[in-house]
């Protein structure tokens, strides 16, 4: 492991690079109110973040990343458009792999700009890539926005689309839902039994707890409606799979997605955005002809990445995590902004890994 002072110096240099790209340096508190993070990410965040507490402020988390406090800061009193940079420790619980750090530095670059999302995506990617271009890293990119658009474009009920959209970031449950909605797997016997009864509540016994009779009846009603819905056509499921299976260099991926859009026009707008992004990347000197694109990239990472996603991986060191990652998180600003929203894209570099890879070179 490189010396901490060395990593800190490298972090300062990287932050200076982002300042040079027009970003304003900011600081955030290390202790973050747990409630906000829990509400956003759910119970999973407890497996990733350290929780502590006191009798006055209740539960606090050691910041697992900068995104949430930076978005909050911007939405409270930021001017638009804005570019921010920061450098500091983040803290992650490790329960599976003792070789992963539980405390490490991140240097970030975040852009809040309504004007031209494709240009902002390209700017963040190119700026971060520029800062680590001397390292032997492989770039991976994807676009959750295309999958989202495809789900919304399915010929089925709003309720089914909502259920699928909710699980885009949980591939296993997404697949199970898709299989059931398309009739590939039958409804469980207990559900068929339930729906066959005239009065399903007859054997319910006493109603206890906060979830009351009306909520139970509402869901039974929803299940009845859903049982009568025509299954999602196999051709539509194949199109979703086709999107998830795209794995090409960017220009070929774009071709492939355009073909898919002929049969699924709902993704056309998202595919146009991909093309605009490719052009914006090329204009900034990124070698898009050799840039990898994967239809399923980013699905198992952070929820709320809902558009462009990218990461840089040290191919010679498969044991190390990504040196830099980032993406678009418009949905996050919508949730935190309580009605307000601002298109946002950003990424982070891990200076500790940068120093480690530089030392190996």
């Amino acid at each position, binding site marked *: 492991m490189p010396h901490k002072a060395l990593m800190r110096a490298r972090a300062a240099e990287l932050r200076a690079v982002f300042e040079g790209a027009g970003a304003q340096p900011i600081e955030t508190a290390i202790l973050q109110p747990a409630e906000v993070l829990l509400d956003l990410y759910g*119970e999973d965040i407890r497996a990733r973040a350290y929780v502590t507490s006191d009798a006055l402020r209740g539960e606090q988390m050691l910041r697992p990343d900068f995104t949430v406090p930076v978005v909050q800061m911007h939405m409270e009193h930021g001017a638009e458009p804005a570019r921010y940079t920061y450098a500091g420790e983040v803290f992650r619980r490790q329960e599976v792999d003792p070789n992963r750090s539980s405390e490490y530095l991140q240097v970030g670059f975040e852009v809040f700009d309504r004007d031209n999302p494709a240009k902002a995506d390209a700017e963040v990617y190119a700026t971060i890539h520029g800062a680590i271009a001397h390292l032997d890293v492989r770039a991976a990119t994807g676009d959750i926005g295309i999958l989202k658009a495809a789900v919304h474009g399915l010929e089925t009920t709003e309720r089914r689309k909502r259920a699928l959209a909710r699980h885009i970031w949980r591939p296993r*449950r997404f697949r199970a839902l898709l299989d059931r909605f398309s009739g590939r797997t039958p409804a469980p016997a207990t559900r068929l039994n*339930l729906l066959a009864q005239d009065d399903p*509540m007859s054997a319910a*016994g006493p109603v*206890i707890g906060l979830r009351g009779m009306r909520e139970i009846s509402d869901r039974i009603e929803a299940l009845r409606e859903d049982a009568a819905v025509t299954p999602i056509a196999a051709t539509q499921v194949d199109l979703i799979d086709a999107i998830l299976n795209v794995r090409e260099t960017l220009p070929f991926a774009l071709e492939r997605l355009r073909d898919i859009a002929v049969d699924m026009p709902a993704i056309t707008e998202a595919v146009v955005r991909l093309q605009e992004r490719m052009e914006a990347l090329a204009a900034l000197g990124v070698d898009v002809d050799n840039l990898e694109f994967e239809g399923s990239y980013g699905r198992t990472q952070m929820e709320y990445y809902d558009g462009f996603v990218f990461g840089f991986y040290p191919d010679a060191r498969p044991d190390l995590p990504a040196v830099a990652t980032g993406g678009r998180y418009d949905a996050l600003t919508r949730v935190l902004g309580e009605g307000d929203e601002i298109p946002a894209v950003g990424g982070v570099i891990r200076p500790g890994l940068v120093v480690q890879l530089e030392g190996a070179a």
Partner: protein
Amino acid sequence: MTIKLGVPSKGRLMEKTFDWFGARGVALSRTGSDREYAGAVEGVDGVELVLLSAGEIPRELAAGRIHLGVTGTDLVREKLGMWEQQVEELAKLGFGGADLIIAVPHCWVDVDTLDDLDAAAAAFRAEHGFRLRIATKYHRLIREFMKEHGVADYQLVDSQGATEGTIKNQTAEAVADITSTGETLRANHLKLLSDGLVLKSQATLFRSRKARLQGADKVRLNTLIDKLNIEG
């Protein structure tokens, strides 16, 4: 030095453990008054009995302060990260059997599977403005199980006892707890999810991978393991 054997300090778990060792020619007993946590070992040399709360035995094994310990598989998996690297399972003792399960009110006729629970949780959150609460003391095991099965929009609330009562008291909507017969669940108007079995647990003899063994102790441990007639 001696080999330290950690055994639950009270109740049926202690008695059954004493019986199990006794049947294999190793007599364990409590000494002194009923309230004093001291014990004796006969039938094998150089083994010391340490009476501990079953919940503390995983930690003591991981710290290497005891060489062997009897506790439930549920506790080892809940309390130790990468448990296989810290302890080795020597023998399942055939008692103390219990299942870690997820249960919901019996009146939830619309919920039978994790898939239903997930859908009900989404609707619950929209209705009440907070995530559906599951009361448990097995935070890690339940979180991992839910993640693996892609259940969202829930939260865990800590409950160290009388967990089944939390639903009636409206401090939780579902529970995740250990049950052996399911009687407490039924008495509290709860039912199991048909695919909600998280873990089957029973009393198990573990060996610490962290405790140091020197010269004579190594021999002592092997002698004990031979005598217990288990694969070491």
